[in-house]
């Protein structure tokens, strides 16, 4: 166990202890008044909790292809999201349900000197294995809060997770095959396929400079275990700091191109997962963007995890507020908390970091002086000068929500 993990364990114990002292006035830390939608409304009623292979009960977004959201209370269990609680998102319903490592190959070809076809064991021994703790957040996380609403998965805040990924750097593998000097992009494909041939396959591309940077990883390990099947077993592309759309599951093909990827199967780069091509990556609500570009890095975000919307907290007693913050790897600068709906702010304390791409825990001891309803808010900034806006902006895809979130609570 690393030092950080020790600290996490320790802080978890302390949290449990604090919760114990509060238990006298039960049910002080009440569960959210809302259901699995956490305030998001749906055309056809509440989303059920469902059980899928190797997963605890998660929120159903849709069943075929599988799409499951992590209930938000799970983010209070620690900065690492457990494998069986990690969200699941597929685009195409012709997905593999059986994978035999004896047959599995990762093919690397295209504008390279020496194409390779590797078994997982061969890939594991190609260079030294590395680890990174990184957040995978869906581009549409929190889409359900878009105003006006937009079609698409109506996610609350649970389409994200933070894990320790183990694999080899993509760069090292590309160096083995020898990328040709005119290479422009690298395309990634997994074993999931469309149901109909007229539907585009799910391919994603990275610019060659990004693919050859130290960050992207070809990972088989997640929190010390094999990847769960539904998170991309046996191999997943990890793109730290980038939205989950690039993290291709069941990765089977890497193709180096001497041009920018286009065509039918470039749909998820060239038509979908695009944001307005301007500074705010936003447009006036309800309007279209003239020009768009592929979504890329994670904006700075923060959440309160120790109390859910609709929860209750005690008056005149020391309470520890706790939560998480993250960004694209620039490094968090500050996390500020307001317990009066944004009128006043106080600095929270950041716990030790598991790395610049990880969720980072924040804590603040507080004592509520008044009973009644109030709004808790948390706001993070990073070292690149980004700060969460108080008011959410809007884009047609409902992507990249990053405004300060409000947690209404009652002080009793």
């Amino acid at each position, binding site marked *: 166990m690393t030092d950080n993990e020790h600290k996490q364990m320790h802080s978890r114990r302390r949290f449990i202890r604090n919760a114990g002292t509060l238990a006298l006035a039960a049910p002080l830390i009440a569960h959210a008044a809302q259901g699995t939608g956490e305030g998001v409304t749906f055309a056809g009623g509440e989303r059920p909790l469902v059980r*899928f*292979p190797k997963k605890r009960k998660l929120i159903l977004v849709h*069943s075929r292809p599988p799409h499951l959201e992590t209930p938000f209370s799970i983010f209070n269990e620690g900065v690492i999201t457990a494998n069986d609680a990690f969200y699941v998102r597929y685009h195409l319903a012709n997905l593999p*349900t059986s*994978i035999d490592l004896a047959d599995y190959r990762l093919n690397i070809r295209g504008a390279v000197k020496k194409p390779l076809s590797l078994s997982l064991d061969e890939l594991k021994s190609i260079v030294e294995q590395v680890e990174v703790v990184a957040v995978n957040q869906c581009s549409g996380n929190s889409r359900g809060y878009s105003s006006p609403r937009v079609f698409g998965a*109506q996610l609350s805040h649970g389409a994200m997770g933070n894990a320790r990924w183990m694999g080899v750097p993509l760069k090292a593998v590309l160096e083995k095959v020898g990328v040709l000097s005119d290479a422009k992009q690298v395309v990634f494909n997994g074993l999931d396929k469309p149901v109909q041939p007229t*539907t585009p396959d799910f391919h994603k591309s990275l610019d060659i400079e990004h693919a050859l940077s130290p960050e992207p990883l070809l990972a088989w390990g997640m929190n010390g275990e094999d990847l769960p099947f539904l998170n991309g077993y046996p191999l997943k592309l990890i793109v730290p700091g980038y939205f989950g759309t690039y993290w291709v599951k069941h990765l089977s093909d890497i193709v180096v191109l001497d041009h920018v990827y286009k065509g039918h199967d470039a749909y998820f780069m060239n038509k979908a997962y695009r944001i307005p091509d301007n500074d705010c990556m936003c447009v006036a609500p309800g309007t279209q963007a003239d020009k768009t570009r592929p979504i890329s890095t994670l904006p700075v975000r923060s959440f309160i995890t120790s109390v859910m919307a609709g929860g209750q907290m005690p008056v005149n007693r020391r309470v520890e507020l706790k939560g998480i913050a993250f960004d694209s790897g620039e490094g968090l600068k500050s996390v500020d908390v307001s317990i009066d709906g944004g009128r006043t702010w106080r600095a929270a304390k950041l716990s030790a970091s598991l790395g610049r791409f990880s969720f980072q825990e924040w804590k603040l001891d507080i004592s509520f002086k008044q009973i009644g309803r109030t709004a808790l808010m948390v706001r993070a900034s990073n070292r690149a000068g980004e700060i969460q806006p108080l008011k959410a902006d809007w884009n047609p895809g409902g992507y990249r929500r990053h405004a300060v979130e409000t947690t209404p609570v009652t002080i009793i």
Partner: protein
Amino acid sequence: MQSTKTVRSILAFCLIFFTASSSSFAAPKQIILPPETAKLPKSELAGYQLATQKCMICHSVDYIFYQPPGMNQAQWTAEVAKMKHSYGAALSETDIKSIGAYLAVVYGTAEITDSEVLAASAISLAKADSKPQTQELLTSNGCMGCHAIDKKMLGPSFKDIAAKYKQELQAQNMLVTSMQKGGVGKWGEIPMPPMANLNAEQAKRLAAFILEQ
């Protein structure tokens, strides 16, 4: 004591051996996904049967349940059009209008008595009454998205279906039932949606066509 030690080291050796080579000898990793139970709400509108048949080719209909409330007919119709234009769904322009109207009634702001809803739904009813050729039926019902005459695609080839059932007395009726009610498990885990938009005569004609292959 010595022998215990030896046994221990043999065990340790085996453990290391199996761990080191576990990935090459391991059985295939498999998952069984929970059965798909979501069904669209029934309606007299033509779009109900069309949606049940065509949306369910590519995705479960809970995809639709959990869209935002309060969308109007134009918005729902645009979303259905996206399924054709972006995702290549086998939908005609009249299917799109009809499904859009139905979804706007059951999940949006439209009422079943709206003239726009009736207009959008009437078009495809009129079309369903005409007598399309077998080839047209295969295309308009999206059959060829999942099946081919002589090779396995997502579903079995028509030749394989013919070979499996040809000898059975009730083969044609069986295929008619499979088409009209859908099914799963006979050929694999990906379900075939019910082709509820086919009338009995059309389904019989298609079944005969398949059995001739």
